[in-house]
């Protein structure tokens, strides 16, 4: 096989910056940002879409970056944890995670935070979840049960869930 048939020029828009990259067609968004753009805040926990550590925002919606091939997202806006806030200028969700100690080893944390930011948006849009009593209702009351349910795609092996719920509730206020 020739090189041309297995790789392409891709323009990735990440955190507002455009990057022109020659990428192997098998390269996922996860490997593209980690290995090619040195944006290592997005984590690889399973590479199978099972843990949520690689959660990024694609045009504002949360996706598992390990399940998206980079060649398919040209022109779309990707936001990684680095695009939400930096250590000197944290996003309110990042601040809440620090304040509530909603992390231990920190490896799932960027995915949790990206997921939580998108989740709040989903709830504001009125999207119901499995625990929403009235799925046809206009608005969602984001209580602890709703937060737990909506954040259950992000595994945390240290078991920081209790404080993650508190942090998200704080950031949602």
């Amino acid at each position, binding site marked *: 096989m020739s090189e041309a048939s*297995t790789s392409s020029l891709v323009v990735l828009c990440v955190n507002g910056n455009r990057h022109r990259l020659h990428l*192997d067609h*098998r390269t996922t968004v996860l*490997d593209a940002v*980690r*290995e090619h753009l*040195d*944006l*290592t*805040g*997005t*984590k*690889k*926990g*399973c*590479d*199978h879409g*099972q*843990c949520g*550590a690689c959660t990024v925002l694609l045009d504002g919606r949360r996706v598992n970056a390990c399940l998206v091939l980079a060649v398919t997202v040209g022109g779309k806006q990707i936001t*990684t*944890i*680095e695009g*939400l*806030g*930096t*250590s000197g200028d*944290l996003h309110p969700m*990042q601040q809440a*995670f*620090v*304040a509530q*100690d909603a*992390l*231990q*080893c*920190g*490896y799932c*944390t*960027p995915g949790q935070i990206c997921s939580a930011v998108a989740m709040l948006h989903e709830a504001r849009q009125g999207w119901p979840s499995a*625990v929403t009593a009235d799925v046809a209702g206009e608005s969602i009351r984001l209580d602890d*049960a709703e*937060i*737990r*349910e909506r*954040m*259950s*795609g*992000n*595994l*945390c*092996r*240290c*078991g*920081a*869930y*209790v*404080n*993650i*719920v508190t942090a998200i509730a704080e950031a949602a206020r």
Partner: protein
Amino acid sequence: MEHGMTTTTTSPDLSAPAQTNVVGKGFARTEADQKVSGALRYTAEIPAPGLCYGVLVTSPIARGRIMGVDTRSSEAVPGVLKVFTHETMPRLPSHPEQPDWDIMYGSNYVPMEGPEIVYAGQPIGYVVAETLEAAQYAAEIVRYTFDTQTPVVHLDRAEPGAPYPDKTQPGHAAGLPYHEPDEIWLGYVAGTLPSHSIRGKGRAALAQAEVRLDGSWKLSYNHHNPMELVALTAVWETPDRLLVYETSQTPNNFRNAYAKLLGLPRENVRVVSSYVGGGFGCKGPIWPHSWLTVLAAREVGRPVRLVLSRQQMYTSVGHREEQRLDVSLGTDRDGRLVAMDVTKTSPTPEFEDWAEPAWYPFTFMYACPNLQTRLRLVRANIQSPTFMRAPGEAPGVMVQECAINELAAQLGVDPIELRLRNHADVYPIDGSPWSSKLLKECYARGAERVEWHKRNPEPRSVRDGRMLLGMGMASVSHTVYRKRAAARVTIAADGSAHAAASASDIGTGTATFMRQITAEELGLPFGKVTALIGDTGLPEAPMQAGALLAASLGSATLDAARRLRSRLVHMAVSDRESPLHGLPADRVIADSGCLVSVPGTAREPIHAILRRAGFTELSAEGLFDPGGLGHPGNLGGHETWEDAGSWRHTGNTRLVRTGDPKRDAREGRRGMHSWGSVFATVAVDPDFGLIRVRRLTGVYACGRILNPKLAESQLIGGITWGMSQALFEATHMDRRYGRFMNSNYAEYLMPVNADVPTIEVEFLEDPDPYVNPAGVKGVGEIGIIGVAAAIVDAVWNATGKRLRELPITAEAVL
């Protein structure tokens, strides 16, 4: 060291009053901002010039031989640099031998040196390529032909009459289907925790018991599953200088292992492992993939990064073994224990003996004059089991507490009352006093919080709508382990300070507690102190394991900071230009960046003292050495100590014990444990068998709590693990092929956010002057302990079902 740095060796003065404004406060973890912003670099994220990618090829069969390998199509993949097989992988100059506490091989088996296959997932090939994609693809298309044999993997092979192929073991000659090893892991089992022990008359005393309880508990294989995949990057800086970025709970042990296996001086190997994305034991010992990567990197002449796949994590870095515990308890008619007998049976690999000491809690938890413990191992085609969170206690306390709860029901005695009747007033192993023990207080406070008196002991008696409700409880204890640790504390002329040691952080707060202790001892604000960790170039700290790091490294940091403070005080009081000149050293304390006289008003900023002496910075090294480095008898929590006043600093920077050794031996021994009680409330759906945990409450006495915020997080996490042990976690073995069937995050069940109930953690004040100078007992392991037993009992209380197989499934409840 830079100009102006010195290491003090003067004898510090301990009489200066300790300040209490930094230690014990809930500061945010030091690296939190970097973690939440994605800026913190974990192992596989540290750049290396010329980096290429390694991928392991692992065996699909559990037992047999490689008959042929065809690497041609793999080697033809563009970007592939090398495809190693068992014929082409360079050999280790030296093989793992007996492990010890300074090397810690996860397994003594060296794969890829021959065609034999002894467990599924064993490394049989190693591909190195320019890109990750090329390496992964090439690894998939290496073609092997095998001579496949039927693996042996079943625990039930230990049943009487089963054939036992290990002809080297005495059990074979005796016609037994198992063997009973005398020693495992350089005494991890036999040294401190004898596997075959008899106290009093042993099991024979069961005959005198008026009440008997006999049961068999079966526990599943479990895997650690830290979120961060195990990884390393091997960089040969020169042909005989190695730098490894590694996901390691024990940087020094990895360095020592590389040096030994590669025949290099230790100073030629540097291991960097600062922040680790969870470990739970599997990143403690060194495993074969690490040295294979180092060998491959030397062969290709470039840095190689290996990241195990999630599936490979199930066969590459150990597991908690499947096990059966056969237990007999005998009591008098009032429920006082007369005799206990426990036998653990578990599978171990073909090539070595390993078992976590699940019988061990029976030796310390309750007063009982007669006790017998036994370990039986069955040879199987599995990788070596290894340490996993609270090794020994997690399964052992769970089973013992389940048995005690069943006994309480049988006797019609309240479970707490039964425990009080069997309370061990002294350390049961040798009769010595406890260093501190607040178990009764933990029972009382926990019972108060959950309103235990309202529990109806009759099963199926409490409902919430359709749901059956139940409550259960358990005792909790963990041995205080300690290990030699060194630390360096440096203060700079600008008034800042930093603490340094080689320890890693797996999410526990290593840097944070080092900063707190340093700030407190030097009288500095927390924000003025930084910490440097996770590099074997720094003073040697022990493993982050066994809840021993804060106790050991905390004490070393305390020692270093006190030495530094003492040096500064001596500099000031002996200098005519200092306002403190001529004061007795014990009348000077450190406060707010100054040395201050007590009582009085004389004070001088520390930076002024340093500048006048011509120092840009000043360092002191501290050491905590509980003695007998690495000797198993000294790792356990039942050592010989005098009283608190016997911790003395000597001129050669050591904390040593003083006092009369004979008197120590006679009077000074202390049992050292942390304590707790845990309570569970569950709701069970009677039609579907679904168990929902509603509330978990733990009350703990763990010595001095350095940082309540971080300690509470660890306890909440540990309790979540305990719930997981009870209701979720099991790796299922396909007995025909000897392969784990659910080696992924979708099918290996762990709690998600929606599974987690209200979890409450409370610490009791537990000043313990004996454990170590920092007064720390550690909180990393204790959270998981006992929780599963409390849940099992709550399920019984709700449903009337006595369940003895973990995890509990819905079908078992129905």
